[in-house]
C-alpha cells in the first residue's frame, strides 16, 4: 500500500495521457435532446398523479 494515496497507489496526471477527439458540446446537445424527448414522451404516456386535496 502506498502511503497517502488511499491504497490505490500514485494517480498519474490526467493531462499526461494521450488524447482523443471528444466533442463535449455535441455530447451535451445530444443528451439534452434525448432527455427532452424522453421527458415529453413519458409525460404524454404516463402523465403525473394528482389526487384532490381533502380540505
Amino acid at each position, binding site marked *: 500500500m502506498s502511503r497517502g494515496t*488511499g491504497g490505490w497507489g500514485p494517480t498519474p496526471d490526467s493531462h499526461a495521457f494521450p488524447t482523443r477527439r471528444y466533442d463535449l458540446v455535441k455530447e451535451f446537445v445530444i443528451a439534452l435532446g434525448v432527455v427532452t424527448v424522453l421527458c415529453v414522451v413519458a409525460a*404524454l404516456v404516463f402523465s*403525473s398523479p394528482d389526487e384532490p386535496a381533502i380540505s
Partner: protein
Amino acid sequence: MSRPSTSDPSLGSEPAARRGRDTWTAALTRWVEGLVPKGQWLPDRQPVYVASWIYVFGVACLASLVVIIASGLVLTLGGVTWWHSSTVGHFFNSVHLWSVELFFATMVIHLWGKFFMASWRGNRGLTWATGALAFFGSLGTAFTGYLIQTNFDSQWISTQAKDGLNAAGIGAYFNVMNLGQMVLWHVSLLPLVVGGIVAVHIVLVRRRGVAPPIGAADPTTSLPAPDPEATLGAPAPEGRRTESASVRTVGSSQGPGA
C-alpha cells in the same frame, strides 16, 4: 476615437510594470483564468481512457437539470395551483416530474460509476464531495417539490414530514406545512444552492481532469517519447504529451463523443 498613448497625462508617473496589474479587476481576471489549466475550460480532446458510456451519465444528469429548470420556469407562469385546472399546466408538471426522475436516475448511475472507479483519487476529493453535496441538495429540492403540489399528496407528505422533522429536533427552524415558505425554497433558495454546487463541481472536473483508471501507469514514464512525425490534430496543453496516430485510430472509433 483615438487610443490612449503612453504619454497620456492621466497615467501620471505610474510605473509601466504596475499599470493595470494591481487592481481588484485584474486580480479577479487572473483568478478566473487560473481556475483550470490553460485550454481546459472546454477542450475538444479528452484522455484516451474517456471512451466508455459510463462518462455519458454525468452530462445526461446535467441535461436533465436543464429540462427541470425549463419546465419549472413554465410552471411558475401560471402559479402554484395552475396545473390542476389546465391541460397545458398538467403537461408541463408531468415533464417536470419525469425530468426529475431522469435526473436522479442518471445522477445515481453517475455516482455509482464514479464510486467504483474511486474517482476521488489524484487530489479529487473536493470533486467527489461537491458531487455528494449536489446529491443531498437535490434530495431537499425534490422534497420541497412534493410539498407544493397543493393536493392530497402534499398534504399527506407535509404532515408526515413535520412529525419526522420535529422528532429530529429541527422542526422549529422551518415549517414544511407553510406552503409559501416551501414554494420559495423550491423555486429560489434550493435551486440556487444546488446550481452553485453543480457549477463548482463542473469547474473542479475541468480543473483536475477525468480520473485515470485504477492502476494506470504514468504515460510520461512508461511510454516511449512521442514521434513528432505521427502527431495529429490540435496541440495538447503546454507541457503535455500529444497523441500518436495509433491512439487516434483506436480512440476515434469507439465510445461517446467521438
